């Protein structure tokens, strides 16, 4: 399968009378866009722009999305949510760089996120470096949480598609061709005299219930057997974050659209490893289910993908660690070498305490994607979204708020889209 991605760098975004894209400047007629993306669940829909370096805080951030468009089948963009369900990872796709669509969630949530466009908290997130098109949608009275979340997701994806559509005739700044075939390429690097180790990636996902879910083609799989997915599907908008209720444990869609682990494996294919495939693996609640699930996933890794080694990432908080441990246990028993990576919770006190919820000698290689730390929120000039914020004692533009680094959207990535690790000292 071959996927050609055209990248367009957007250097500035402005509101104006016309909607167009010229010389790297994206001009949007705001009213026109709002009309196109509005939803009956909203009593009010506001769109704001936030620029890097501004004294601005985007409050109650839900998801962040990279604007994109399926060039050869526009109707299929973001399949299963606003697009037709169509196989992804093939053909031509347009992606905009330098900008991001940010949704704010205007209903009460157990936890909120924010993005600072400047100041000490800006360095933790890549979304302080993008020009952000921020969607703030107020729900109509009596709107159900689930209906609101669905509407918000539809609107933000529609905006992401709409922005890419505006730019679709521009000359791309970069082209990238990704190709990967399960049938032939798995064997490719085996023929070599120096056979490369076959590495399989297990993407452990969390889909607990409606709106605590990572979706694939528009659906969260609350119960599911492990499945083999095509690596290129991930880059093509097939995977979207719809986790509003436990959002701190989930990566943003922007990271899925540029899946860092799959990117890493693709880039090293043929050099020091043979990328042998991706297993999409659920995180169930009960221990017995976790065992079954891990067993089946390892069977796929061993017997179908013929793995020598497996790397695993997770989504969710504490209990998904047990799934990782189970996967390692069954892998190592099957003579497959394992490594797991995750973000360390339980460290808000600054003390190093039990980060792991299990003890298993099979799990001897762990990469830290960082740990929880306290952060202070300095006052800012402008807040986009609500000034009240779950967990913050004061209005979010005032002094005296101490939160954790996972409250910064994009600062914590369980897929490894950052440069932090924890150290024990």
């Amino acid at each position: 399968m071959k996927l050609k991605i055209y990248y367009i760098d957007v250097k500035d975004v402005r509101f104006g009378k016309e909607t167009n894209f010229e010389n790297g400047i994206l001009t949007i007629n705001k009213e026109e866009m709002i009309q196109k993306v509005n939803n009956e669940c909203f009593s009010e829909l506001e769109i704001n722009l936030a620029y890097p370096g501004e004294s601005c805080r985007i409050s109650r951030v839900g998801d962040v999305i990279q604007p994109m468009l399926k060039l050869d089948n526009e109707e299929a963009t973001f399949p299963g949510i606003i697009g037709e369900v169509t196989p992804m990872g093939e053909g031509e796709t347009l992606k905009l760089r330098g900008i991001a669509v940010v949704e704010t969630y205007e209903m009460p949530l157990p936890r909120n996120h924010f993005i600072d466009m400047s100041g000490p908290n800006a360095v933790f997130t890549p979304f302080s470096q993008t020009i952000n098109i921020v969607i703030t949608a107020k729900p109509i009275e009596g709107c159900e949480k689930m209906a609101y979340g669905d509407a918000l997701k539809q609107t933000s994806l529609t905006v992401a598609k709409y922005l890419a559509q505006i730019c679709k005739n521009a000359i791309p700044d970069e082209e990238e061709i990704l190709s990967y075939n399960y049938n032939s390429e798995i064997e490719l690097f085996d023929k070599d005299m120096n056979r490369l180790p076959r590495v399989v990636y297990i993407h452990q996902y969390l889909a607990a219930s409606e709106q605590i879910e990572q979706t694939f083609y528009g659906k969260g799989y609350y119960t599911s057997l492990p499945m083999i997915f095509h690596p290129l599907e991930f880059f093509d908008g097939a995977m979207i974050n719809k986790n509003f209720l436990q959002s701190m444990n989930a990566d943003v869609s922007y990271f899925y659209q540029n899946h860092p682990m799959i990117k890493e494996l693709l880039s090293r294919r043929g050099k020091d490893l043979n990328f042998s495939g991706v297993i999409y693996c659920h995180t169930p609640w009960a221990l017995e289910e976790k065992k079954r699930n891990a067993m089946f996933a390892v069977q796929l890794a061993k017997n179908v993908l013929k793995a020598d080694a497996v790397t695993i990432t997770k989504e969710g908080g504490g209990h998904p660690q047990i799934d990782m441990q189970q996967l390692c246990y069954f892998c190592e028993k099957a003579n497959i070498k394992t490594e797991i990576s995750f973000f360390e919770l339980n460290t808000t006190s600054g003390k190093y305490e039990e980060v792991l919820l299990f003890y298993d000698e099979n799990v001897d290689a762990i990469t830290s994607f960082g740990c929880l730390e306290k952060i202070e929120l300095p006052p800012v000039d402008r807040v986009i979204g609500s000034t009240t914020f779950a967990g913050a004692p004061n209005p979010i533009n005032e002094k005296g708020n101490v939160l954790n680094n996972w409250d910064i959207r994009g600062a914590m990535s369980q897929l490894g889209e950052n440069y932090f690790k924890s150290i024990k000292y």
Partner: protein
Amino acid sequence: MTKWKIVYYINQFFGQYGGEDVAGMGMVVRNEAIGPALNFQQSFGEQAEIVSTIICGDNYFNEHREDAENQVLKILEEYQPDMVVAGPAFSAGRYGVACGTVCALAEEKFGIPAITGMYPENPGVIMFRSKIYIIQTSNHARTMTKEITKMVSLSKKILNKQQIGNAKEEGTILRGLVRNVRCEKKGTTRAIDMLLKKVRNEPFETETPMEKFDQVEKAPAIKDLSKATIAIATDGGLYPVGNPDKMPFINSNRYAPYYIGDKEFLDGRDYCILHRGYDNEFVLESPDRLVPVDSLKMLEKEKVIGKMYPYFLSTTGLNTSLENSKIIAENMIKRLKEDGVDGVILTST
């Protein structure tokens, strides 16, 4: 170029006053580098100046702790150093405690960075390791030059506000603390590097070390449930409206008992939830979903159980450390045992 001002603390022995016979001597301040302080000065070079060396008898410091502390505070206030260095104390216990005390005072009272050096079994280690950096030394002063070199290297990093590595890299005793550092390589790159090393049977180092847990023995089963008193305890963070006990909502170290009495069920209007780890809506609608009073009352009527304990014990289990969990459990168990409870149902979210 700025010259860093350093105050150095040593005991009577390293201060060249004598051994055990003069361990009772009081505190002396000398405006020069003496003994290990001189080694430190030479090793550090021009950028630092030992503005004073504090010398004190080990017995005096430990027997007149309050006086000694006050004198140290006065000296630090007077000299306002950029850093405080003490020892190294090797395996000398009283000296180790004095070094730790001086350093901790500097950090806590003035925010002045401070380091010392000790042998891991020095009692000063347990007392001060979470508060200050302690270079891990041998148990004998013959390695003085080596230890001073390590202390100088860490001091330079601290003074120049450079990133300080993990305990192994810096040669420090593990403080039991954790924080983030920025790496050159992305998380995913480091992950695959580690995996491939493992595949090639090359040495690799896990970034998150694993620790062994205590084994908990199962309690024997209740012999006659129909005579047993059963309690409910939860970590779902259910408290009376207004949170009268000001219970913490994250990394809590306590629980609170709330009276149920004769209620047949819990009314959501009487309660609030302090727990940001799950969607509270469904429990607020009917708290029995978290604290199943309705079911236990039914079992009580049907005589399946003897009776329901008339309180539920509540805490918030979110990012709670093992240390705090143990404290909460011990306190819960104490109460339940005193009140003759035979079994407890733990509900979690």
